């Protein structure tokens, strides 16, 4: 997209030089993969504008996105952090249940629909964020709301 990805990389480099002082600091997200997967659609719901803005900036920066889109990137990080903080504050129990289920099921969302329904309803009540899957056709039930999950270990009614 905005820069050429390295091909056939055989090594990695860890550069421990911190960012220079004139660049404003932002705390990195400390949430790991399973909770991030669980919260992804809520982050997408609240932060869509920031995320789209960042991607647009990267495309338009024409290869210099790492330098020129730092401001947009900080907004993306702060917005995601705000969503995770709210979920941690208001829906921690359902959140933990869902990501622990994901962690035990190879991070497959369709194995954990019951926990997901609890989390979705809690987040919608407390935070007003709604899970929508982008690109779902108008005339079908979104896959996370279907009672039967075709590929789940138990494919019958989930809740």
């Amino acid at each position, binding site marked *: 997209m905005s820069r050429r*990805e*390295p*091909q*056939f*990389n*055989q*090594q*990695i*480099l*860890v*550069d*421990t*030089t*911190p*960012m220079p002082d004139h660049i404003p600091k932002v*705390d*990195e*997200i*400390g*949430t*790991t*993969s*399973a*909770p991030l997967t669980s919260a992804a659609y809520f982050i997408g719901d609240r932060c869509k504008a920031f995320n789209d803005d960042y991607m647009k900036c990267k495309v338009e920066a024409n290869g210099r996105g790492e330098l020129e889109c730092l401001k947009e990137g900080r907004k993306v990080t702060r917005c995601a*952090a705000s969503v*995770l*903080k709210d979920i*941690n504050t208001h829906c*921690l129990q359902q*959140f*933990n249940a869902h*990501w*622990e289920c994901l*962690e*035990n*099921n*190879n*991070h497959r969302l369709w194995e954990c629909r019951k926990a997901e329904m609890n989390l979705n309803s809690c987040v919608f009540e407390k935070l007003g964020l709604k899970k929508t899957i982008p690109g779902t056709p108008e005339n079908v039930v979104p896959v996370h709301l279907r009672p039967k999950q075709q590929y789940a270990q138990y494919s019958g009614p989930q809740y």
Partner: protein
Amino acid sequence: MGVPFEALIPYGIIIGMFGVTGIGMGAVKYFSNDGKQARWNRDLWDRFGLTILQQMMERDYRLTGTKRGQSTNVVAPKGFEVSNPWKLEKRIY
């Protein structure tokens, strides 16, 4: 002409060793996954490895210190922001 029992001892040992292998492999899998179900069919985005850049499980390792550890902390521990690996490649032209 019965078969003397000594003739069957090697077979007993062989079959017993299958069991030892199975228990040993199971134990290795259990402890390397912190008692959780193993991840499988992962792609480069998910995978764990310290030589080539691999993404999410390696990031989990840097955040929590264990391969399968998870955390819901909003703020990363100090030093995480400078431990991010860059991909290197040989020059091809």
